[in-house]
């Protein structure tokens, strides 16, 4: 069965992508899959968010489980672009699947510097994480400010000719941002990142954890966003939120997504990608028997 997808400048062998931050920097893919399995099942690998300088991340606790969900407060711990290029990229390139680097910046300039720095490297594309605080605007998230997102995408587009995706936050002026990304030259949008959430980790003393909610709990919310956004824009929408089975993935594809990313499920079982692709194939087969929708 041919599962290949065309995302404009990027062709994927399958619609499944590994979401940012849920496979580290991807250097251990071959510990859990054979090369054949990687190439046959994983359309693309999206790296953990990469920043200019190394980031040590947030103090513990960084995780809290909620019913069918997970709140994370990692703080984009990563070794920085220099170390990423030196110690990680050579390894992940060898797997033979497209590598998409997720960029984390707190100023437009930082995103530009990162994009320029990757121009000479063999990476298939960039994914801009706009759920970052913009320090030049008093720390307000990029994703709340359509004007800034427009400027960001236009500027990165000027220096980056390969595949360029923007990863939306599910909150804020989401529909407006999606349209702006399209107008500003993005090749695709990823819908979406985690939902701002809060957990009370202790009643007495009262202690909370604020972070991003992911996992099956968010699937209906993100699915709605994918459905609505894919009607509004022409560039491909990549669905991401709570996929844990082949059926979930199919729901995203039927709701308008061209491809999908899996995140939290990798933390439950590192071989989720294989299971989801197998189920997706079985589902597709089943549906084809009943209707002409696939």
């Amino acid at each position, binding site marked *: 069965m041919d599962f290949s997808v065309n995302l404009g400048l990027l062709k994927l062998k399958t619609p499944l992508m590994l979401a940012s931050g*849920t496979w580290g920097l991807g250097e251990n893919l071959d510990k859990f899959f054979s090369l054949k399995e990687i190439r046959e099942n994983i359309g693309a690998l999206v790296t*953990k968010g990469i920043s200019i300088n190394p980031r040590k991340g947030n103090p513990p606790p960084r*995780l809290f489980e909620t019913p069918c969900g997970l709140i994370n407060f*990692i703080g984009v711990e990563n070794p920085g672009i220099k170390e990423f290029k030196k110690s990680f990229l050579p390894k992940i390139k060898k797997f033979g699947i497209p590598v998409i680097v997720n960029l984390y910046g707190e100023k437009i300039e930082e995103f530009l510097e990162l994009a320029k720095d990757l121009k000479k490297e063999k990476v298939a594309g960039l994914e801009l994480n706009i759920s970052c605080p913009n320090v030049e605007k008093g720390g307000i998230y990029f994703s709340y400010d359509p004007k800034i997102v427009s400027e960001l995408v236009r500027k990165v587009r000027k220096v980056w000719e390969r595949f360029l995706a923007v990863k939306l936050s599910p909150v804020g002026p989401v529909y407006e941002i999606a349209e702006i990304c399209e107008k500003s030259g993005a090749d695709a949008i990823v819908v979406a990142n985690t939902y701002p959430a809060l957990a009370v980790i202790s009643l007495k003393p009262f202690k909370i954890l604020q972070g991003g909610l992911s*996992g099956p709990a968010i699937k209906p919310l993100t699915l709605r966003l994918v459905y609505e956004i894919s009607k509004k824009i022409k560039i491909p929408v990549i669905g991401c939120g709570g996929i844990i089975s082949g059926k979930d993935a199919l729901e995203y594809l039927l709701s308008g997504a061209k491809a999908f990313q899996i995140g939290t499920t990798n933390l439950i079982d590192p071989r989720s990608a294989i299971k989801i692709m197998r189920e997706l194939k079985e589902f597709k087969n089943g549906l084809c028997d009943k209707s002409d929708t696939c």
Partner: protein
Amino acid sequence: MYQGKVVFNIKEADNIYLLGIEAPKKILKSFKPGQFLKIKIDKRFDPLIPRPFSIHAIDENILYILYQVVGKGTKALSEIKKGEIIEFLGPLGKPFPKIKNYIICAGGIGIAGFGFLLQKSVNKKDFYPPEKIFYGAKTKNELVRLPFLKKFGIPIKLSTDDGSKGYKGLITDMVEKELKKNPQIILACGPQPMLKKIAELGEKYKVKTYLVMETFLACGIGFCMGCVIPSKKGNYLHLCIDGPTFLAEEIDLGFLS
């Protein structure tokens, strides 16, 4: 993830259970004392994340997990019946350090992982047996698996908070008495206040001290960066990669409650 068949899941004391999982010997052979595994507890995604447990013992093709019910995951685990299939991932984390002339200090369910160390140190090849085991719990009933632990012929000192068995008081009092007489390396696993006290004793008696730490884990394999332990150098260590056993002098225990 591997699959295993539950061969027993029996109550050892109030809230403490011993779980036996039948799994291929080939897989179990790769497990070393001090390492852990993640068990997928519910297929309906609540609890969503598999829970980590130490390896309590391995007999042929049976893996033993000794666990305490503290929340919804362990409660659901205690309801799993003989014959059911469960999925697990492991071995995860680093083994215990290969040390000689040391004592073990275990508080409550912290005893779980030391059973496998005793098993694997019988032949004194890769791991060495401790000189003594200090094992404390709230009350007599919660001192579990004593017949199994005693089999190895290592002196065991017991304490309970209520004095229902052994010394009445904290196990760390007994450890301090021992260190006064005979300072030696400590390997400890237990509740946070016990670990803090042990770290203090290690410093006071100038002995190398290893602590088996706990955090909430997600992936258990270095993907999510969720399991950090602050180090004295100001950076973060990752429990599932660098631990779960850490040198006390390397970690900043200030984050513990």
